[in-house]
């Protein structure tokens, strides 16, 4: 019970951090990373929900199956997003280093 809750809260923390970075950062690569962190948080919450201590009854395999497919789908989404980001960089007149100056976090200065 307490284990599930701790892992769920950890997943929630990851999700919130990813969500904030997704909104606050303007660089495409950071957005992609933020979405990945968010997805990891969701997976952690799902797995934590399914966790049962030994002998506490049948495990719930449905979240496991969802995470299993979700990981592979998130990898492919990341790959497609990276290719799209590269295309944006190739075709746009503004270079990515210019965009970084507008980044909320100010890491590009």
């Amino acid at each position, binding site marked *: *019970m307490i284990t*599930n*809750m701790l892992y*769920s*809260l950890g997943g*929630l923390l990851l*999700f*919130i951090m990813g*969500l*904030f970075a997704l*909104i*606050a950062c303007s660089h495409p690569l950071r957005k992609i990373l933020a979405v990945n962190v968010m997805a990891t948080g969701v997976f952690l*919450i799902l797995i934590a*929900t*399914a*966790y*049962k201590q030994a002998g*506490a*009854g*049948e*495990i*719930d*395999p*449905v*979240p*496991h*199956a969802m995470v*299993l*497919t979700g*990981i*592979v*789908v998130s*990898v*492919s*989404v990341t*790959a*497609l997003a*990276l*290719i*799209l980001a*590269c*295309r944006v960089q190739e075709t746009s007149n503004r270079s990515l280093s210019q965009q970084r100056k*507008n980044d*909320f976090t*100010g890491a590009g200065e």
Partner: protein
Amino acid sequence: MTARSTQNKRKRFDPVLLLVLLLIVFLTGLLVQVILATDYLGSGLGDDVARFQDLSGVESPVTAVLLNFRGYDTLLEVMVLLMAVVGVWSLTRAPFPKKPIEPGPIQLAVVRLLAPLMVLFSFYLVWQGSHLAGGAFQGGAVLGGACVLMLVSELPWLKNISSRFLRIGLLSGPLVFLGVAILCIVLQGTLLDYPQEWVGTLLLLIETACAVSIGLTLACLFAGGRPKDDLSGGRKR
């Protein structure tokens, strides 16, 4: 966005950012309440899955859920993977270097040793998926890892792989899955309602085809574009 506080050297305090921060703190509070209110002691769907385990044709509950009870979901997810490859292939050509790089002897030896083992292990994982942890997605991931290992060591024959073989491999999983689903309509009248006597065989067939296609999908995504002879008359990258 350009407004910055005068003496703050560490960080700009942007009003929009502050608003976002407040909203996110609010959302965090709501979600923490949801987590605290969740009942973790209930068995969820575990008992239901255990009750119908015998009908599913496999002994592993996760595989049963993945391919039998929620087969429709997995079918669509395999399609999503295919769409990702189609998207990547239509955008760019794989950035193989013009001049072939000679991999070092140690790297070559390691790849020659590891790649066949990983391929073997991936199919073992698929086979194991019927009774233990394992299955199409895990096997496909290991197969993809083997392909990525060969890709990073720049084996010279890799960039001359015909796109026809790749397409057949990529399509094998979705097509076999879809074919079995349509066969189920013909035989049983419902999509993905496997006939009870062949259910184990059909699931293994779907898993093997999906593992090949998932592994190739991951490798193609890592390669980052279509092969050399694909759409060669199209626009240059």
